[in-house]
């Protein structure tokens, strides 16, 4: 038995936890204040050391630009990868770094990377563990969403290294949750599904227990969907209801905090009053929101998880898995009653609520850590890679080398040749994703392999991909003529971008941010209006007669408002966005009727 302890860490979008196996049982450790959930938030007070967790959360309203929350959404991604909406959503400012990576600009001079922010959170969890266990800790199992790609996993590993932790295993969150659920509660063979709706990501995994193996059969998800989106939708609704107009950064941070509290309260109460004392100078505001109203706002977001569930279930069935018997819920957002109702409706399964949705992942990480250091009985965990890996081939196509849902660890390779006479090198661009065109997938890295020029099809280059147990990729390219190997280092999400492009991105994001933002938001909103208006006309013609008169009139009024703003001389981006949102909301019933009509044939 290895006596050196390994801790299990759930590095979450909104909260993070640390656990360990003690006397054969996994437990979540509390800090000196008795708190087990550490808000994943860091603030940099001017002239003082950074604060982490609850203290940082308190600073959110006072110093939103210097307080960083939900950083997990930006781990391992590039600035170019972010939509305008994503760039402008956080109350802190995001800027591109010199290699196109995402950085947080706390002020004009101080930049921090998502890894550095996460490292502060991980270091605090390490301290909590060391204080509780009264011994130094340097090894950890860290969980990530199943759908995290290579770059996002690498970024998580780097963050842990910065915090002084060696990552012994990167574990997928649903797998951890299923472990925590307790194999002892399952029979000799069982199929379970884990629905994980966290703060910033969603995934659904189907796992199968057979003869002592716990195997992930299929996994699918969306890395940009979570409870934070619900907070934002509710905050926007509240701002509209209270007619707050343009919000300052501190106002927006406060409103989002109150929206989150209201959302949480509405899981157990039918109605809550949101109070905003002295919100704007001497002005205080309050507004009541019912669960029914909140559910109407949440429905489109929750419904985005339905097709993903159906896809994962279909893939599991295709791979011969038995019907899912248990549905485990993970992540704070699964407390929302509507989530449970919808799951029952879509999957015909009653969710199992015996597991604490906030702690399951950390407990599972602790169990895996316990297995690695010999503190608990070994269970054989077999995981899969959630995304296909391949290289770009002639014509800009993605050539898959390791398909998604392949059991890991895995190695696979292919032999490639030169496409034209006299070719002296081959550029190997490593891609991750499911789209057929290379440009639509994530570019993880690239290497150029030189070889002796010769006629077409004379060169032979072997490319081997190896994914380890952490889901991290290693690529080896070999010129079979010389035996010369090139190991492609894929450590980073950011790839070299032309200096000019970087400069352009930087200037777009900082120098011209205020001049440009209105026009960019306008363009995006206009695109949405142009999609919505003809869709409304078409849908009204098709199923408009099934609407109640007041619903029809609400739609036509909202559409008229959108047209008015579009036709106005000045481009009011905020107003157009708001009008689009109102029209989008007014047409929810119409959209449902369309789907119904389509199924009727």
């Amino acid at each position, binding site marked *: 038995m290895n006596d050196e302890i390994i801790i299990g860490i759930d590095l979450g979008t909104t909260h993070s936890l640390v656990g360990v196996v003690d006397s054969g049982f996994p437990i979540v450790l509390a800090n000196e204040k008795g708190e087990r959930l550490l808000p994943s938030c860091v603030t940099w007070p001017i002239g003082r050391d950074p604060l982490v967790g609850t203290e940082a959360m308190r600073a959110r309203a006072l110093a939103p630009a210097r307080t960083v929350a939900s950083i997990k959404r930006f781990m391992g991604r590039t600035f170019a990868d972010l939509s305008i909406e994503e760039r402008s959503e956080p109350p802190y400012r995001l800027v591109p770094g010199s290699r196109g990576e995402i950085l947080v600009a706390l002020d004009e001079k101080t930049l921090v990377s998502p890894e550095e922010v996460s490292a502060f959170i991980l270091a605090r969890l390490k301290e909590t563990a060391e204080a509780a266990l009264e011994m130094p800790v340097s090894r950890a199992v860290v969980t990530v969403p199943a759908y995290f790609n290579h770059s996002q996993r690498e970024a998580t590993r780097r963050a842990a290294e910065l915090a002084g932790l060696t990552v012994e295993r990167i574990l997928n969150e649903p797998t951890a949750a299923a472990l925590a659920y307790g194999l002892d509660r399952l029979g000799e063979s069982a199929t379970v599904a884990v629905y994980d709706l966290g703060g910033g990501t969603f995934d659904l995994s189907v796992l199968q227990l057979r*003869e*002592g*193996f716990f195997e992930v059969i299929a996994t*699918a998800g969306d890395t940009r969907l979570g409870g934070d989106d619900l907070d934002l939708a509710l905050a926007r609704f509240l701002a509209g209801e209270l007619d707050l107009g343009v919000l300052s950064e501190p106002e927006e941070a406060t409103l989002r905090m109150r929206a989150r509290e209201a959302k949480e309260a509405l899981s157990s109460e039918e109605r809550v009053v949101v109070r905003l004392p002295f919100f704007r100078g001497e002005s205080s505001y309050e507004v009541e929101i019912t669960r029914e109203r909140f559910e109407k706002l949440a429905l*489109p977001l929750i*419904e985005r998880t339905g*097709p*993903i569930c*159906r*896809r994962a279930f*279909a*893939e599991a069935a*295709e791979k011969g898995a038995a019907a899912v018997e248990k549905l485990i819920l993970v992540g704070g957002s699964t407390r929302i009653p509507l989530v449970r109702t919808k799951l029952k409706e879509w999957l015909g399964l009653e969710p199992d609520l015996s597991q604490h949705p906030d702690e399951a992942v950390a407990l599972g990480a602790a169990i895996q850590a316990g297995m690695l250091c010999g503190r608990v009985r*070994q269970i*054989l965990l*077999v995981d899969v890679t959630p995304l296909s890996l391949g290289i770009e081939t002639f014509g800009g196509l993605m050539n898959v080398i390791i398909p998604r849902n*392949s*059991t*890991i*660890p*895995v*190695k*696979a*390779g292919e032999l490639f040749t030169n496409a034209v006479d006299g070719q002296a090198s081959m550029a190997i661009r490593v891609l991750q994703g*499911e789209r*057929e065109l290379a440009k639509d997938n994530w570019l993880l890295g690239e290497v150029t392999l030189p070889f002796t020029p010769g006629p077409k099809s004379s060169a032979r280059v072997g490319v081997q991909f*190896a*994914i380890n*147990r952490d889901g991290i990729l290693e690529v080896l390219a070999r010129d079979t003529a010389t035996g010369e190997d090139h190991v492609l280092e894929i450590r980073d999400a950011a790839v070299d971008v032309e200096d000019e492009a970087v400069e352009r991105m930087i200037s777009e994001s900082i120098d011209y941010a205020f001049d440009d933002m209105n026009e960019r938001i306008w363009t995006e909103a206009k*695109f*949405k209006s142009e*999609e*919505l208006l003809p*869709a*409304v006309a*078409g*849908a009204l013609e098709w199923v408009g007669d099934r609407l109640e008169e007041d619903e029809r009139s609400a739609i036509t009024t909202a559409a008229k408002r959108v047209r008015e703003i579009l036709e106005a001389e000045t481009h009011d981006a905020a107003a157009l966005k708001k009008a*689009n949102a109102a029209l*989008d909301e007014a*047409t*929810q019933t*119409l*959209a*449902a009727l*369309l*789907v119904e*009509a*389509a*199924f009727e044939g």
Partner: protein
Amino acid sequence: MTNPFAILGLPESLLLDPAAIETSWREHHRESEAASAGDASDHNRARALLSDPISCLAAWLEVKAPAIAPDRSIPPALMDLFAKIGPVLARTDALLARHRQATTALARALLTKDCITAQLEVQALLQEIQPVKATFLDRFAAFEKAAEHEDFAAAAAALGPLKFLKKWEEQCRERLLALIAT
């Protein structure tokens, strides 16, 4: 790739029982975990190859008759099927692209009917591919018999069409899953 049959300690056969592949993979996986040394990735790869009849045939030919190069052209008998698949996949891709670009629930709802039609089309294609594939798979016992006399010609000739059928089946499945997720 090293011999996947040898990696899992299984006979070099095209008629392996899926349960035997699973049992052998489990045993090897368990051993490599216990020893913390064995390369689980080889076991996983071997299991994936042998569990799929077409990659199993390719591996079998590579082991038994490495000198035979498979034919990479589409056989004339599959041309009609190929001519049907291309347009359906292209239409489905265009529809999926429109669905991805739609930013509102209403715009997506308007595409529901087309998505249902596309699902039915792709399902119909899958139903056409499967029996064709089955006619080849049914000949695996005969391939083994011929191999006893060092005759691999029929097996090698089947590999090309089977690879195309597998690719088309996968493409249709992928589209079907994408349509399910709309």
